């Protein structure tokens, strides 16, 4: 490969990785054109990137230690155990080492588990273990990991399992907790819907096992795998019990990892039932308890029975009641609290008697939550379709469903309506193409059959699809009659049909209904967020939408409105936890708080919250221009990742070329990178879209200022001031522009205006401090430093503010020390380091160049 070619590949790879997985293939198709090789290359690298998660993450130090000290023989890549070929180690746990291996006979990947020595060294123990493992291996259920083989070869005892491409529930919980450290927006618990989904599938697994007479005994997050496609798989059924020697009755039913040496407990006891903790014989109800503990943990973000030592935990399990879940910082449905309480009753006679009862309760709860009072079901796939899907998958892989949407037949006299008919079909095609698991014939092909009187089966054959949607439109004045039929090509059978008699203005709602009917009837598996992407669902939840609009209104009145804005966005989320737009709004509030709403939050507090909220929004709806824009803001101001920011902006424009904030913030981006003229264009575009926005007006002045076009800046300030006489921004930028022109008296006069309107904005104080300093008013400048210093005792003051005054005082050392501190703070002001005129005295210093390098502005 040539370096030039690699550059091209590398560039596409990065752009593709910046997109959500379901958008990548469409993106590459567009970007690569006819270059098949290029596309294959990038796609194989994306696959490698996804697989390479843990690759090279082990620090070399660990390897060095292994090299020098650790000599335990292990299986090696390429080695064969029985007919399985080892690919690599997946790690080790209490049940022994696990390897990824290939079964060449069936051409599939498997997980090969080597049993630990303590188990295989005792023949009796081994025999009993194998007996029970064999019994468990007969379980055949989509939520239970499939055991292919239990065997022995070359002195290794092994179990060959289905290989699960995913993460453990433990890893998922840790992930959620890590996200929580950076944010209170995204709580450290899992989402209610995710929790329920996992619990339900775990309960399904338990029902299947329990009804076959098998008890797990060691249900815990480490033994639950979450497959990428949403399936939950419970591991290691039947492996726990027999690992314990029969002659130790008290320890008989203690889970595997715990008992190593008699009398010594190691590993996890948190999920043990009281009867296990007492060493009593256990039955299926012990699993119900453990599932209760896991469920509690998913909801609360912490385990119910905790303590500093194993014996404290055991005591807590035996004696204490868990903290009620209502204490957690969000509302947990009462029914769910009841379910958990009932699973965690210490006396097993009073607990759920069977896992089936527990499953039934969970199912009812989920169904109730999934269907808001008679409204449109918009919270993800309905239970029934999910179940149908499960049934399908259990039978084996299926091809994605396919469909051709034909143009609707115009039944009106007016031929003008043709456009209307075509448009209707086109909109439905556009909506359906957003679904990854559905093949949709492109418009041109589908429309090529227009007005040709061809039988549906023939259409299906020609377009190679299994289903066809056809329909008709009759339009008279404002009245609309639309019919639609979904037909299976195979037998000509009508899967669904509907007639709508509505007003013209309902046409979008009808389109949405038809789209959803197709999805439901073809039993298309929707990925997360896809359903909402199908429809512009935000206008349906009027209550949440209104709250969102109020939030945006207050956000536009920043800085003072931010607090109110956050309240409204949070209320919208409380109304609908899946309301993606509100998360994007929240992200923007934190973006602002972390950058120039000084003294409220430091960047390291605010910006991760902004990012988390924006990512939540995108997880719910990947086609939200607002959320892509929020991320772009953080990319440039906090990560200093300029190419990521640019890619996000482009993504936002792809989705909505007229989203004002995207133009607004991209104008900042261009200014920061020194592309002044392009920046003005973006500012003007923003102004066009939102002529009465304060920032559309004032920030153009700011960009003129940083482009050193001081007269234009001053002129723009006057224009802004006429529209927004109460805002301090025009006076502030005007002051800075006058200062740069050397008109210090005018600048001070302007600053007096600023100070009248803004009493506690630190960057304004710092601006005045800098102005005093360059005017030779050293004492006044220093008193502002003292004032800022005083303020900083109570709240965050950006180090950048201090740096600016020190520059004015000619104190280079001080300025660099503060800038260095600003760098460590990830100060959002540094994004403008390249263009900020006040820092000019520092530019020739190599330390300044080094700062520019570190924030990737050295070009």
């Amino acid at each position, binding site marked *: *490969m*040539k*370096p030039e*070619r*690699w550059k091209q590949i*590398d560039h596409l*790879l*990065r752009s593709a*990785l910046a997109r959500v997985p379901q958008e990548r293939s469409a993106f590459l198709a567009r970007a690569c054109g006819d270059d098949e090789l290029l596309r294959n290359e990038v796609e*194989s*690298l*994306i*696959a*490698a*990137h996804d*697989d*390479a998660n843990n*690759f*090279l993450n082990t*620090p*070399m*130090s*660990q*390897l*060095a*230690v*292994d*090299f*020098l*000290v*650790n*000599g*335990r*023989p*292990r*299986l*090696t*890549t*390429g080695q064969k155990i029985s007919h399985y070929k080892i690919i*690599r*180690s997946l790690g080790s746990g209490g049940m022994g080492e696990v390897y990824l291996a290939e079964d060449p006979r069936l051409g599939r990947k498997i997980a090969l588990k080597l049993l630990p020595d303590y188990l295989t060294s005792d023949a009796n123990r081994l025999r009993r273990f194998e007996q029970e493992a064999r019994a468990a291996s007969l379980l055949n259920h989509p939520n239970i990991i499939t055991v292919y083989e239990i065997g022995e070869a070359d002195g290794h005892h092994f179990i060959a399992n289905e290989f699960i491409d995913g993460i453990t529930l433990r890893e998922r919980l840790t992930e959620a907790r890590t996200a929580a450290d950076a944010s209170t927006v995204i709580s450290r618990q899992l989402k209610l819907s995710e929790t329920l989904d996992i619990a339900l599938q775990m309960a399904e697994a338990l029902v299947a096992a329990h009804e076959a007479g098998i008890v797990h005994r060691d249900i815990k997050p480490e033994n639950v795998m979450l497959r990428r496609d949403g399936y939950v798989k419970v591991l290691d059924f039947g492996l726990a019990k027999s690992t314990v020697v029969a002659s130790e009755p008290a320890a008989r039913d203690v889970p595997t990892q715990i008992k190593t040496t008699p009398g010594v407990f190691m590993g996890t006891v948190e999920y043990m039932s009281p009867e296990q903790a007492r060493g009593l014989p256990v039955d299926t109800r012990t699993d119900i308890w453990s599932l209760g503990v896991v469920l509690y943990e998913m909801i609360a973000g912490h385990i119910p029975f905790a303590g500093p030592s194993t014996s404290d935990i055991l005591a807590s399990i035996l004696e204490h009641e868990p903290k009620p879940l209502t204490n957690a910082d969000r509302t947990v449905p009462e029914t769910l609290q009841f379910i958990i309480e009932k699973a965690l009753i210490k006396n097993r006679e009073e607990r759920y008697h069977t896992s089936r009862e527990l499953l039934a309760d969970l199912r009812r709860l989920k169904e109730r939550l999934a269907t808001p009072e008679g409204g449109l079901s918009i919270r993800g796939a309905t239970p029934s379709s999910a179940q149908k899907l499960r049934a399908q998958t259990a039978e084996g892989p299926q091809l994605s469903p396919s469909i051709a949407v034909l143009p609707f037949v115009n039944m009106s006299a007016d031929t003008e309506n043709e456009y209307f008919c075509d448009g209707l079909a086109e909109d439905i095609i556009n909506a359906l193409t957003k679904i990854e698991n559905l093949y949709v014939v492109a418009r041109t092909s589908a429309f090529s059959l227009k007005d040709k009187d061809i039988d549906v089966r023939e259409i299906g054959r020609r377009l190679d699809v299994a289903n066809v949607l056809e329909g008709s439109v009759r339009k008279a004045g404002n009245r609309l009659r639309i019919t639609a039929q979904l037909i299976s090509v195979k037998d000509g059978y009508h899967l669904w049909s509907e007639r709508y008699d509505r007003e013209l203005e309902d046409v979008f709602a009808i389109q949405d209904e038809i789209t959803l009917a197709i999805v439901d009837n073809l039993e298309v598996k929707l990925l997360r967020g896809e359903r909402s992407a199908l429809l512009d669902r935000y206008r349906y939840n009027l209550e949440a939408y209104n709250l969102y609009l109020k939030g945006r209104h207050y956000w536009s009145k920043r800085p003072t409105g931010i607090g109110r804005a956050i309240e409204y966005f949070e209320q919208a989320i409380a109304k609908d936890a899946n309301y993606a737009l509100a998360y994007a709004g929240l992200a923007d509030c934190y973006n602002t708080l972390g950058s120039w709403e000084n003294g409220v939050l430091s960047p390291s507090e605010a910006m991760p919250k902004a990012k988390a909220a924006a990512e939540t929004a995108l997880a719910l709806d990947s086609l939200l221009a607002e959320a892509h824009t929020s991320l772009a803001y953080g990319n440039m101001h906090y*990560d*200093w*990742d*300029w*190419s*990521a920011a640019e890619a996000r902006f482009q993504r936002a424009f792809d989705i909505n070329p007229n989203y004002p904030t995207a133009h607004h913030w991209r104008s900042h981006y261009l200014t920061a990178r020194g592309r002044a003229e392009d920046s003005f264009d973006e500012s003007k575009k923003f102004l066009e879209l939102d002529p009465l926005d304060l920032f559309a007006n004032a920030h153009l002045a700011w960009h003129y200022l940083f482009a050193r076009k001081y007269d234009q800046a001053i002129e723009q300030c006057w224009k802004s001031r006429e529209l927004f006489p109460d805002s301090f921004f025009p006076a502030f930028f005007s002051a800075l522009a006058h200062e740069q022109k050397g008109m210090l008296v005018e600048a001070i006069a302007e600053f007096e205006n600023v100070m009248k309107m803004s009493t506690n904005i630190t960057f304004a104080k710092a601006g005045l401090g800098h102005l005093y300093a360059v005017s030779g008013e050293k004492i006044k400048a220093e008193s502002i430093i003292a004032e800022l210093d005083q303020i900083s005792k109570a709240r965050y003051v950006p180090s950048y503010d201090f740096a600016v005054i020190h520059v004015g005082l000619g104190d280079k050392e001080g300025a660099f020390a503060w800038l260095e501190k600003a760098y460590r703070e990830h100060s959002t002001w540094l994004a403008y380091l390249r263009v900020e005129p006040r820092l000019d005295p520092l530019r020739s210093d190599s330390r300044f160049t080094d700062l520019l*390098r*570190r*924030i*990737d*502005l*050295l070009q």
Partner: protein
Amino acid sequence: MHIPNGSEAALDRLAPLIYEELHRLAHRHMRREPRYQRGHTLQTSALVNEAYLRLIDQRNVRWQNRAQFFSIASRLMRRILVDHARAHHYAKRGGGAVKVSLDEAALVTHDRAAELVALDNALTSLAAIDERSSRVVELGFFGGMSVEETAEALGVAPVTVKRDWSTAKAWLYRAMKA
């Protein structure tokens, strides 16, 4: 002794010096904690840092800067570890030519050794098309340097290092799987 900036010649001249120091330090660390357990960390970065300080102190070497030293040390670290791995790997596969005694090399875990040799080869191929990315991996993985330190050594922004790291990883992983 003056060292020209990061050149191969410099590496060759300095290699014995740094090698000796790293090796000595590693042994000392091992002796101090004879029953090294898995999970106990012998930080390469700590090792390199220590070597740096000692060499600055004692040998009267005028280093251009810290970044340059780290560059060279991480390249050496790669050589040392890969050489060990290769010796072990071939000993196991070739079965005879090299008699492995109970020294460090014998204790190298076999799959790690194979992996490391494969990584070294892949890294060399990567360098042919993307020198900087290969250096990012060398500094980060073999030298134990942080993102900030790597960026400093290469004269680029930390964000560039992160991006290079991510795509280089995908490239190497694919190359090693093939």
